[in-house]
Every structure is written in structure tokens, then in C-alpha cells.
């Protein structure tokens, strides 16, 4: 497979995954607000902080009101990581993949792209935030389903998988960070009803609420939320699960090389990091630090993958 093609596959998949997580975060934040006391209006500002996009936002909007921030995160093409921008990037990469992916996958992705061009801020009024995000999430599920159902398990599948899983591990860590580090500035609230409401919301945004209840019952404990979102080997949106899938795909890719290649050092470091901790230790020794380590590890691994397989000059 051409390096350029591998790169297009990687970025198509990665941008779709990124768009999906952004949609999940916006959705959950919005619904969090409905049941929160008025003073907790800062989830929106927290999102800007966690994505390190405060500066860019300030350049584009005079005030950080809810409508502006939703627009910035969902629709604004001046923001390269807005949902619409990610969909555009995914689709523009996929233009060069028409002969590598199934026509069904292209058609659905292209339809999503065409729809995204029609979005205006009015979609948050009608059909409304809930319906809009529910619909969007279904689009992503459909694309994911088509990918699973139509792409042969060869290099094309694996390079997409690498893009998805790298983004997923990073995003789930980032989402935990949003809650843990930014959402709750008042110490007396920790363990209180608002705190629990927010943790439940985090679980829901990762589609992990039912998986959580199944394993731990429906009493929300921080430790257990961290356990399921970071360390659970069976939950498909946990960091550990994502890294294991990543490992499998990278193994399959390497196994097709004419000569054996040394293992990716960043991957070994990341898996070692995940194996070295349990959720209690991760929290006690500073969850934010741990989450930052995961995010940095993913970035470094992304760079290593790029150097070995994708870079073409």
C-alpha cells in the first residue's frame, strides 16, 4: 500500500472519530446544564480550556456565551477541529480513497459531508440540540458499521483502525480530564449530587452508562468510572481497549513487512503505563498527571507511526 494512501486512511478515520467525540462532549455538556444549578454555566468554558482552543475562540467571538461556543465547536470552519471541519477533513482525505474503500462507505461519508454543509446555527433550535446530536451520533455509528461490514481485514482496515484507536484513547483521557480537572471548582461539591450527576454524564457521553451499571451497579463512584473508562479490557471505548486494538492492528501491519521491523517504542511505553496502574492508584497519585501522560503518549505514538509508515518524502 502506498504511504500516501495509508496516510489518507489514517486521517479519514481519525477525523471521523474526533468529530464523534466532539459531538458526544457537546451533547453531554448541553444536557448536563439542563439539570444543573445556574452557577454551573462554565462547562462550555471548560471545553475551550481542555482543547486548548481558548485563544482561537477569542479571536473569532466577542463573548463566550453558549451559542458562540457550540457554534465554534460544531460548525465553525475557522476551527480546524470543529465537528464540521473534522467531517470535511475526513471526506477530503477519502476523496483519494474511492478505490480503497467500499462505495457504501464513501456514499455514507459523502452524504454526511453534504449534510454538514447545510448545517446552520438554526439546527440547534430545530430539530433541536437533542435530535441533532442523536442523529449525528447515528451517522457515525452507521459509518462505523459500514466500515466493519465492508472493508476487508487488510492494511486499509488496519490503518483506519490505528487512526480511530489512537484518537479514541486520547479523547477518552481528555474527556475524563474535562470532568476531573475543570468541571468542579468547589471542593465542598466533591462527592455531592452535582458531582455524581456530572460523572454519570461523562459515562453517558462515552456510551458507557449501561456498561458501568452492568459491572458496578448504578451507584456512581469516581474510582469505578475511571476503571471502566481507562482500564476496562472489554468496554470498547476504554483507553485500554483502544490501545490493545491499536497494538493488534500495528502488529498485523508489521507482520506484512518483507523484513521484520523493531517494535514501536512509544507503543510499548503506553501499554506498560496502562498495565502499571489501577484506577485507585491513578487517582491517588494524581489523575490529571496520569491522563496527561496518556495523551502525550498517544501523541508520541502518532508521531512514530507517521515516521515509520505514513511519511512519504
Amino acid at each position: 500500500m502506498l504511504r500516501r494512501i495509508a496516510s489518507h486512511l489514517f486521517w479519514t478515520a481519525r477525523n471521523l472519530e474526533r468529530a464523534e467525540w466532539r459531538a458526544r462532549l457537546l451533547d453531554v455538556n448541553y444536557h448536563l446544564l439542563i439539570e444543573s444549578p445556574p452557577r454551573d454555566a462554565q462547562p462550555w468554558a471548560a471545553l475551550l480550556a481542555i482543547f486548548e482552543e481558548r485563544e482561537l475562540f477569542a479571536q473569532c467571538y466577542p463573548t463566550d456565551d453558549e451559542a458562540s461556543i457550540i457554534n465554534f465547536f460544531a460548525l465553525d470552519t475557522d476551527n480546524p477541529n470543529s465537528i464540521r471541519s473534522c467531517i470535511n477533513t475526513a471526506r477530503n482525505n477519502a476523496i483519494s480513497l474511492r478505490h480503497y474503500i467500499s462505495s457504501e462507505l464513501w456514499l455514507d461519508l459523502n452524504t454526511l459531508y453534504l449534510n454538514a454543509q447545510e448545517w446552520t446555527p438554526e439546527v440547534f433550535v430545530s430539530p433541536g440540540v437533542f435530535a441533532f446530536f442523536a442523529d449525528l451520533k447515528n451517522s457515525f455509528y452507521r459509518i462505523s458499521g459500514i466500515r466493519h461490514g465492508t472493508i476487508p481485514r487488510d492494511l486499509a482496515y488496519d490503518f483506519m483502525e490505528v487512526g480511530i484507536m489512537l484518537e479514541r484513547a486520547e479523547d477518552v483521557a481528555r474527556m475524563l480530564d474535562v470532568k476531573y480537572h475543570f468541571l468542579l471548582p468547589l471542593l465542598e461539591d466533591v462527592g455531592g449530587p452535582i458531582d455524581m450527576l456530572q460523572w454519570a454524564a461523562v459515562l453517558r457521553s462515552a456510551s458507557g452508562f449501561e456498561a458501568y451499571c452492568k459491572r458496578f451497579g448504578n451507584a456512581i463512584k469516581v474510582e469505578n468510572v475511571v476503571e471502566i473508562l481507562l482500564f476496562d479490557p472489554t468496554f470498547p471505548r476504554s483507553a485500554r481497549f483502544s490501545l490493545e486494538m491499536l497494538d493488534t492492528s500495528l502488529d498485523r501491519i508489521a507482520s506484512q513487512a518483507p523484513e521484520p521491523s523493531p517494535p514501536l517504542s512509544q507503543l510499548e511505553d503506553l501499554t506498560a503505563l496502562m498495565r502499571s496502574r489501577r484506577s485507585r492508584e491513578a487517582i491517588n497519585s494524581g489523575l490529571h498527571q496520569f491522563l496527561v501522560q496518556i495523551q502525550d503518549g498517544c501523541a508520541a505514538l502518532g508521531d512514530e507511526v507517521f515516521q515509520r509508515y505514513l511519511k512519504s518524502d
Partner: protein
Amino acid sequence: MAATVSETGNMVPVWAAYKSDDSVFDEMLDLSLNPRSGCEPVTDALFSMPSAYFAEVCARADAMFRRMGVTFNVYGAADGSERIFPFDPIPRVIDADTWATLEAGLIQRVRALNAFVADVYGEGCILSDGVIPRDLVLGCPQFRRAAVSIKPPLGNFVTVAGIDLVRGADGRFFVLEDNLRTPSGVSYVIENRVVMTRLVPALMRSCRVRSVERYPADLLQCLMEMSPTGRSKPTIALLTPGPYNSAFFEHVFLSQQMGIELVEGQDLVCVDRKLYMKDVHGLRQIDVLYRRIDDDFLDPLVFRPDSLLGVAGLTAVLRSGNAAIANGIGTGVADDKAVYAYTPAMIRYYLAEQPILPIVETYLLRDPEVREHVLRHLDRYVVKPTGASGGYGVVIGPQADENELAATRKRILRDPSAFIAQPVIALSVHPTLIHTGSGSGMQLMPGISTFAPSCSWACVRACWPAV
């Protein structure tokens, strides 16, 4: 007995309004509005359709093309937008006998053109024998010095040709021009057929249309036979300028149908006079390159040094015989508009046959006497620049105003060799749904791939109203 428009006109108001015009040739209906030979199934089907259905058919075709992503890019559109290919659901019928003649004529023509290219970059016999003036060929803007003495496998320079045909007022076919560089359009023919078959399956069956489906397989066979390395499974790649090229859809389509790699210049590298592509696991050698970019952009070491679309060193690879290319470098010398005037002579010279397909009478303005005559009656002629293709720079005398004619006269006098003149041809017309009620000037654009013994193939490249 087929129904005539006049009999069924009240059923189909659209058809009742159809006017015939005796100054042009209508390909479907004669002057008394009876269907021509082979067109009966089409006219029968059209007459039995409720007129409201026409709009629905158009809309369904449109939706299908958009869903299938059959698009072309428009150069210069600010948003890099994609348009779907204009498609008219009324099929253009070429009956089997007519096609047999066309096919023989096209094969004959492309054999001669290929022999000419091989000769020009080889021994130059046709020039030494004075059949075509040497200065006309060597001075042609598409002549490529870099191609001299490159010997492609099987002597195959023109692997794919697109020959444009028109019909005059008497219904006879003429060759309008040859496209021998990187002709495009065949994917639209194949996709059009898919759409037509889904839109009107019964009609397609009753017409017993010849299949166009085999084209990619035949082309692949041609390309494989050109491999110079003798490897049992040659590696073949299609070189595209990328997703923003107007024909990118076709590049994707063909590479997918042939199961070959679709590469861009950045994917290629030449090492030790061999051509490679950059694979995730290292370099992989390419045996045959089906290129869809122009000569000028192929190799920055030989042609335009600023080109990022090609790959440095490709010409040296070809010269060393370590890879083959389709079409060959410099084939444009044979589709020059002045060289066109000599194509009947070429056919006689190389094949010792009489040309089957006539060309349009062509005046070379480098000849002072001819020039004087044409300049005096400029408003009666079509003037074309010799080097360009696809209608660029064409001035149609009867439609041009005084200023345009004066400007054209000036341009001709400045560089007479750069222009030819032809009489105006009243192009044939055909009923369409898109411009309901009136005919549109037609061009037939067949494609032909040559030279594999198993593979003398031709098909209608596209049918759409010329604008």
C-alpha cells in the same frame, strides 16, 4: 409499424412541439418525423411515456449520478465544486451496420497514427519521402525532442485514442479531431450505461445494445502486454494529477476496475533508472505506467522544471527500457490540427489502404495562396489554432462579428502556420429532454485502445449535446 410523432403527438405534447429542420441532419427522426433505422424502439418507448414521466426520469438519473459520485471538477470554480455529468436520458442510437464501418475506420486510423508517431521519433521515413513537410512536424508545438529514439514495447505509442466524430447535413460521419495525448471520458460511457439500464431496462433490452463493460479488462490486457521486464505479474499504476483534476473520477474508476495502483507524482521515485512507488513497507518497482498527466508535467528534469505532478528521471527510465508508459511521450504530434490535414495520406502511406472515414476539408494557412483565399472569405470558415484541443481558440466565421474577424485576421498574419481553416459543418442534431423541443449539435466521441492482438476494441465514448 412504429408510431410517428404526428400520429401520437396529441398523447405527448412535448413531441408535438418537435420541429424538424432541413438544413441539418436529425439523427432520430427524418423530415416527416418518422424514426430512422434502429431508432424505432426508442421512439416507441418515448411516445408511450406520459410526458410527466420525462421530468421524473431526468430527476432519477440526476440523483443516481450524484449518489454514485459520477462527477467532474470544474477548473477555476472557487469552491472546487463538483458537477455531475450532464446526462440526457434519450439514447443516441448507432445501428450495427453503421457501427461496423465506424469501428473499421477508427481502427484503421489509429493504426496509421501510431505508425506515424513511431516513424517521427524513429527513422522519419514519411518525412524523407516528402509525404508530410518536415518543418511542419518538427515545428509542431507537441513535438517532443525527448521522445526521439525511445522504443516502447510492441511499438505501442498510442495505447488509448479518443477520436471525435461529427455528422454533416447529409448524415455522413467525419473525423473532427484526434485526441492522442491523455484522452478521457470512457468512465462516463460505462456509468451512463449503468444508469440507463436501471432507468429503462425494457428499452435497453429491446434495443439489444452492445456491452461496453469490457473496456477496463481490455485496457488492462493492453497495458500488461506492454511490460518490458518480462515479470509474470507486471506491476501497473495509473498516474493521476490528483483529486482536483477534472477527470479524477475517471482515474479512480479505471484504476479500481483494473485493480491497479492509483499513484500521484509524490508517490513515485526513480532510482538507478528504475521506477518505484513508495509503499508503507518500502519501494516497489513499477513496470507499466498508465499516465493521465500531460507530457509537460511528466518529468521535471526534461520538461517543465516546476512540475510537482510527475517524477524526476522518468524519461531516463523509459529510455533504458526499465518501464513502459501509455500513452508514449510526444504522441500529441499526431493530433496537431495541421498534421490532421495529412492523415488520409498517412493511412495510404503506412497501410496502403484507402481511408474509411473522411476528414473535414482542411486548409493550411501557411500556404500563401490558400491563406489569401481564406482571409478574403473569413466569415465563411472555421479557424482553429493547430496546437490546441477541445475547441480552445476556435473562431466560427459566420457567428463572429467584425471585431472578432479582424482580430483573427491579425493573429493569422502574425503566425500563419499556427492556424488552419475548415468549412463550416452543419452538425447533426438529436432530440433531447434537457433542451426540450429543439435539437442540439452532436459529436460522437469514441475511444479506442490498440495493439494487443486480442484487443481491437472501440465503443461510444460519450453521448451528450455539444454546447
